[in-house]
C-alpha cells in the first residue's frame, strides 16, 4: 500500500471490528465482537482506543486477550497506536422471582457437598475471597444453621446491624458481605428446628438482608440433601451449584446424590472441586495421597461436569481458617491460595458460559 492510500483511507470502526472478530473467548467459544464485548471504539487519525468488556473480572485469559486484540488492531494499515482498556460486567441469571427477592444480586452460587466434613465452609470462604480479590462484588451466606462456621473462619466479631425497613445489614469483612445464623444464636445454644422454620430462615437471609449490588453471592450449605437445599432451590432461580468432595470413594458416592438432587430441581452444576486432594509433607516435601488421587476429577468427568480444580490438604489452610484469616487473604502468595484463585477463575468462567446462554434463552414468561 502506498503512502497516499494510507492518508486517504483512514482506519474506521467497521474495519477495526472486522479485524477483532479474529479474537475468541475460549470459554464462551465465540468471537469477542459478536459477544458484544467491544465498547467505546474511538478513532482519531491513526490512534485507536477501545474497551473490552468481559463477563467477569476473574477471567483467566484477560491479559492474553488484551494483547491479542492490541496486536491485531496494530497490524491494520493506518494504525499508529492502540489502547485497549479491560473492564467487566458480570451477567445476571435471568428470573423474575430473583428480581423481586434479590434485585441487586447477579449470581447465586450454592456450595454443596453430600457428606459433611469435606471442608465445604473453608472452601466457600476462600472461594468468596478469591472472587472478591479479582475485583468482583461478593457476598457470603452461611446457610448451615446447625453448625454455622463462617463467622469464625472469616474472623467476624461484630453483629449485623439493622437497616431501614427492619432489614438486616450484612457484616463486611475482607471486602465480603457476610450473613450467618451464627450471628443470631449464642455459642452455647443449639438450633433445633423443623422444616418450616428453616424455610423461613432462608426467606429472611435472601429477602430480609440488604445485600445491595453483588456479582456473586456464595452460599455455604449444610451437608446433605435436606430442607435448606430444597427451600433454596424453590425460592430463587440459582445460577448453579458448586459441589465439593474429597477424592475418597465414600465422599464421592454421597456427592453424587447431591448432584442428582440439583439435577432433579433443574439447577445446573457449575462444577466439582476436589478438596483435601493430596498432602505435601512440610519437612520432607513428600506428596501423600491420603484419600486416593484424582477421584473427584474422574467423577466429574464421568458425569459430564466441569472439574474446577484441586485444593491440597495443607495445615496452613486449616490453621488460617481457625484463626479467622483464610489463606487467600493471610498468605496470598502460597500455592494453596493460588489453588483457590485458580478454582475461582474456573468457576467464574463457567458462570459466564451459563449466563451468556441465558441471555439468548430468556427466563420463563408467565402471564396468568
Amino acid at each position, binding site marked *: 500500500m502506498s503512502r497516499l492510500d494510507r492518508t486517504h483511507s483512514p482506519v474506521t470502526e467497521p474495519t477495526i471490528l472486522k479485524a477483532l472478530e479474529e479474537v475468541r473467548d475460549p470459554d464462551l467459544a465465540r468471537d469477542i465482537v459478536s459477544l458484544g464485548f467491544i465498547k467505546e471504539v474511538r478513532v482519531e487519525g491513526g490512534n485507536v482506543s477501545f474497551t473490552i468488556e468481559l463477563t467477569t473480572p476473574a477471567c483467566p485469559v484477560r491479559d492474553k486477550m488484551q494483547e491479542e486484540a492490541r496486536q491485531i488492531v496494530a497490524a491494520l494499515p493506518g494504525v499508529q497506536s492502540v489502547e485497549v482498556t479491560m473492564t467487566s460486567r458480570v451477567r445476571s441469571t435471568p428470573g*423474575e*422471582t430473583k428480581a423481586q427477592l434479590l434485585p441487586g444480586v447477579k449470581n447465586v452460587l450454592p456450595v454443596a457437598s453430600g457428606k459433611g466434613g469435606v471442608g465445604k465452609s473453608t472452601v466457600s470462604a476462600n472461594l468468596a475471597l478469591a472472587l472478591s480479590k479479582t475485583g468482583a462484588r461478593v457476598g457470603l451466606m452461611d446457610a448451615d444453621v446447625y453448625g454455622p462456621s463462617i463467622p469464625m473462619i472469616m474472623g467476624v466479631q461484630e453483629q449485623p446491624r439493622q437497616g431501614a425497613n427492619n432489614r438486616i445489614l450484612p457484616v463486611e469483612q475482607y471486602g465480603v458481605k457476610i450473613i450467618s445464623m451464627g450471628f443470631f444464636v449464642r455459642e452455647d445454644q443449639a438450633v433445633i428446628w423443623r422444616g418450616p422454620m428453616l424455610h423461613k430462615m432462608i426467606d429472611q437471609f435472601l429477602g430480609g438482608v440488604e445485600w445491595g449490588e453483588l456479582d456473586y453471592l456464595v452460599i455455604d450449605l449444610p451437608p446433605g440433601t435436606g430442607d435448606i437445599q430444597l427451600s433454596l432451590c424453590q425460592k430463587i*432461580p440459582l445460577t448453579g451449584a458448586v459441589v465439593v468432595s474429597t477424592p475418597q470413594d465414600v465422599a464421592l458416592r454421597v456427592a453424587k446424590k447431591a448432584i442428582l438432587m440439583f439435577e432433579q*430441581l*433443574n*439447577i445446573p452444576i457449575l462444577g466439582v472441586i476436589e478438596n483435601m486432594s493430596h498432602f505435601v509433607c512440610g519437612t520432607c516435601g513428600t506428596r501423600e495421597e491420603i484419600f486416593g488421587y484424582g477421584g473427584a476429577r474422574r467423577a466429574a468427568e464421568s458425569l*459430564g461436569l466441569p472439574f474446577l480444580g484441586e485444593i491440597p490438604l495443607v495445615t496452613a489452610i486449616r490453621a488460617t481458617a481457625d484463626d479467622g484469616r483464610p489463606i487467600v487473604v493471610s498468605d496470598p502468595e502460597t500455592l494453596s491460595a493460588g489453588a483457590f484463585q485458580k478454582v475461582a477463575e474456573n468457576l467464574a468462567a463457567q458462570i459466564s458460559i451459563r449466563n451468556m446462554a441465558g441471555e439468548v434463552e430468556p427466563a420463563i414468561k*408467565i*402471564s*396468568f
Partner: protein
Amino acid sequence: MVTATTPIPAEISRANEYDVRIRWDDGHESIYLARDLRLGCRCAHCISETTRDELLDPRSVPADVHPLSISQVGRYAIHIQWSDGHSTGIYTFKRLRELDPT
C-alpha cells in the same frame, strides 16, 4: 443428563378464561384443561405419600375450578393457586410434560 434433555416452558399464558397454555422451549405447545390439571396434582394432600393412593375425590373439585395465579418455583416447577383454595401442589416441568394432553 436431566438438565440437558428436559424441556422447560418458555411461556405460560391463558388459553381461555379457565385453561392454561404452555409454549415449551423445544417449540411444542400444550393446552391443559384447568380441571384436569387440578386433578393431576401430586401433592401430599392429593396423593398418599406412603401408599401413592389417590386421596383427592374428584367429586369434591368444582367443575369451574381454575388457576387464580401461577408462579415459578426455582428452575424446575410452577406453583398454582387454585380457585377452590388448593395451593400446596408443585407441578414440575417433567410432570407437566407427562400430563400434556396434546
